[in-house]
């Protein structure tokens, strides 16, 4: 069973995702901040950390901080950034690809 952490638990998408990933036999936990993510990572093996970013937030800074924190781990998880808001072209995905971060647009 895959283990997923969803950062930014305040938004509705986080709760929807936590429910939705059960369809692929995954368990998702919601986290409110980076420190909580690191705390959980110290106790259990996590496959994916998802950062949900709204259109008004600087997702790149958030991703860099998360990368720095998680890179110290022996078995770092895959970081996925879900961008909510209008599609801005391929530059965000290319930026993420160079850093090992999967960038996905949420299209409602």
């Amino acid at each position, binding site marked *: 069973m*895959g283990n*997923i952490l969803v950062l930014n638990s305040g938004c509705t998408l986080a709760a*929807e*995702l936590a*429910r*939705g*990933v059960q*369809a*692929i036999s*995954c368990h998702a936990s919601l986290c409110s901040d980076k420190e909580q993510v690191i705390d959980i990572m110290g106790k259990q093996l996590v*496959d*994916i950390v*998802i950062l949900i970013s709204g259109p008004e937030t600087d997702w790149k800074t958030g991703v860099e901080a998360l990368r720095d924190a998680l890179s110290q781990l*022996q*078995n*770092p*998880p*895959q970081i*996925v950034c*879900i961008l909510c808001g209008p599609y801005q072209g391929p530059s965000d995905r290319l930026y993420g*690809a*160079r*850093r*090992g*971060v*999967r960038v*996905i647009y*949420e*299209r*409602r």
Partner: protein
Amino acid sequence: MRGDEHLRPIIEELDYLLAERRQLAAEGPHFIVTHGFHKSGSLCLHGETVERACLMYRWQEYPLHISPTGLLLVDLVCRYRRTLLTAARIEQIMLTDLFYTRHGANRYGGYRSAALPNRTSIKVHIQRIREQMAKTFIEAGLNLHPGKVLIAEPTDSNIVVYRLKASVEFMHRSY
């Protein structure tokens, strides 16, 4: 679940990423080793050269920047990855396997073989290869520890056994 339709692409992507992690954990990454000066009708025969080794990840090749001697060692751990490789065994293979003793013999105008690593220098070469692997993994955005790919396992005595945990493909070119 009509309301969750918009999540389907995200969940499918997460499913793919999880499968990719499982595959990496089980099989290791995928490397391509290219042999040069190969003659048609033969594969991995002596006289060929080891031209390069690269990581293949998400449709892209990422070369390992290692010395000719290091390349020989990478080739060896790839070709003998189902053999228990101690430093002594590696040295023995390097000195007896025609692929290494006649390395580059097909090259035009004779050949100058790369220096073969000896038993005492193998540990240093392995460490250097791991360092280059680490740089390549970072470049590729691959969260992998090189020590879990080029593995050094202790035995019941002081001897260390080296093992490559990866899938490998050999490619050949005639120049």
